[in-house]
């Protein structure tokens, strides 16, 4: 950044910012975009502090302490917490069942026709189709899947399990394919060239190379699934979220406080477990 000399050398270098024009332009552009955003989101923050709003808000905040710790209620919360973890685990298990075939069918390293130059048209088209299927599964938010399935199978954990299975199946499939393709393809291709079947090439070539990374990512996604399944409960998919929604609707704020604390502990526990597992796997 050059210092700009002022007109009178005795006054020293000019203190004007040389980049002021660009910065002023972006600031004004940002402000110009901010105004419609504030209007569209009805950002009337002062309504939060109006008298009619403030009293119920303060009562609501006050009811948070003390959180409800009756034995019978804690038992119910423990049961719902287990259901949340169970929904997440079952969902991830089904997601892996979906993701592994999708990933195996869509990786290029297992393509026999690609060994001798360009891949044939049909295998290439199949792989592209499967990638689009995975993108579609990933793009629909799991809450939307859960909303749809609640209408088909009714309230309860089935909708949550299927929603997690579909979304996470797409996510896991894409990342498994990326991990498998990112390793060294030399071993796999030697096996394929020497007549090994594709599954054999996978089990003896690709899998030993990438097992640690695959497992580490799956454990991370299991932790994410636990958080998702708590959120899915809000649309009726069972677990801690459904209980929180029910308590909130009845304005039982002390119950909500207990469940929030339990949920934060669960997330922390899952985080610690997944970090320890990933460290053990190396």
């Amino acid at each position: 950044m050059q210092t700009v000399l002022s007109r009178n050398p005795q006054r020293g270098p000019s203190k004007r910012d040389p980049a002021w024009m660009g910065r002023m332009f972006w600031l004004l552009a940002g402000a110009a975009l901010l105004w419609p955003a504030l209007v569209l989101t009805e950002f009337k923050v002062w309504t939060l502090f109006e008298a009619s709003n403030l009293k119920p808000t303060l009562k609501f905040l006050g009811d948070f302490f003390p959180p409800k710790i009756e034995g019978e209620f804690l038992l119910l919360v423990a049961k719902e917490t287990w259901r949340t973890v169970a929904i997440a685990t079952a969902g991830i298990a089904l997601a892996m069942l979906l993701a592994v075939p999708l990933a195996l069918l869509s990786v290029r390293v297992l393509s026999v026709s690609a060994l001798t130059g360009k891949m044939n048209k049909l295998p290439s088209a199949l792989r592209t189709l499967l990638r689009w299927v995975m993108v579609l599964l990933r793009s629909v938010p799991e809450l939307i899947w859960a909303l749809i399935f609640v209408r088909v199978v009714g309230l309860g954990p089935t909708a949550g399990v299927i929603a997690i299975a579909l979304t996470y199946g797409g996510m896991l499939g894409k990342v498994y394919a990326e991990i498998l393709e990112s390793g060294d393809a030399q071993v796999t291709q030697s096996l394929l060239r020497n007549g090994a079947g594709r599954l054999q090439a996978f089990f003896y070539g690709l899998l030993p190379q990438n097992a640690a990374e695959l497992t580490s990512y799956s454990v991370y996604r299991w932790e994410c699934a636990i958080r998702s399944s708590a959120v899915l409960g809000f649309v009726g998919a069972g677990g801690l979220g459904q209980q929180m929604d029910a308590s909130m609707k009845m304005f039982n704020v002390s119950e909500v406080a207990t469940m929030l604390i339990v949920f934060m502990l669960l997330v922390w526990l899952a985080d610690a477990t997944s970090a320890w597992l990933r460290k053990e796997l190396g």
Partner: protein
Amino acid sequence: MPPPLFAARCKACWFVFGLVCLTVASFWSLDLKWAQFFSVDAAGRMGKFIGELLVPETSSKFLTKLVWAALETLAMSALGTLLAVILGLALAVPASKTHLDDPARWRGLSRAVLNMLRSIPELVWAALLLISAGLGPLAGTLALALHTSGVLGRLFAESIENAGAGPSFALRCRGISEAKIFWYATLPQILPQLVSYTLYRWENNIRAAAVLGVVGAGGLGQMLAFHMGLFQMGETSSILLAMLVLVALVDALSFTSRRWMAA
């Protein structure tokens, strides 16, 4: 001889055994209605449901409402992310240990606050804020702001701690105050990283804003919950398509901008 399948000393074997037990216990304890899901009756209902979804509603009045809702979703995500940057940066400064002799007295407390903001998902924040902010996008914006400030605050604090020590050390040697050191040495160094984190979370927040409306927080989600509740499947399918298009557009935009920035 190949190694045995299960060895009592192998940690990984026990880990896999524990995982299998957890999975079996999960499936067994949940009352999953497989029979109901795979029955002919359910297949018929699914088929009818999908059939109704295949006819999106395209009247211009409804499409105008849809476009406004999409813009509202975008505005919610942008404003929420902006507020999160301000709050996150304000919390990241006390939550970071800027140099070796920094007492960092507020580090534990601010990290705890950031963790609390982060752990509670956006949907739960929105449901809690509905009580004071009422139905509508204000609750959604504030919910996104609160959750994202926890995420961004932690990422910003890590950036501040990992920033190169050279510039701030040079200023500290001359006796310059910590505030000026932050503004003129640390912040210009970490600004590209902060911008990158912010853009990544904004992209994530657009998806989150679309679904927040399901609890009544405005945007496309509120329209979706409304029309699905009234079983108006034509409108529902249009809204679902709009959500997919929005997500696809954001994906494409971020992909091209990353290619353009790397070039």
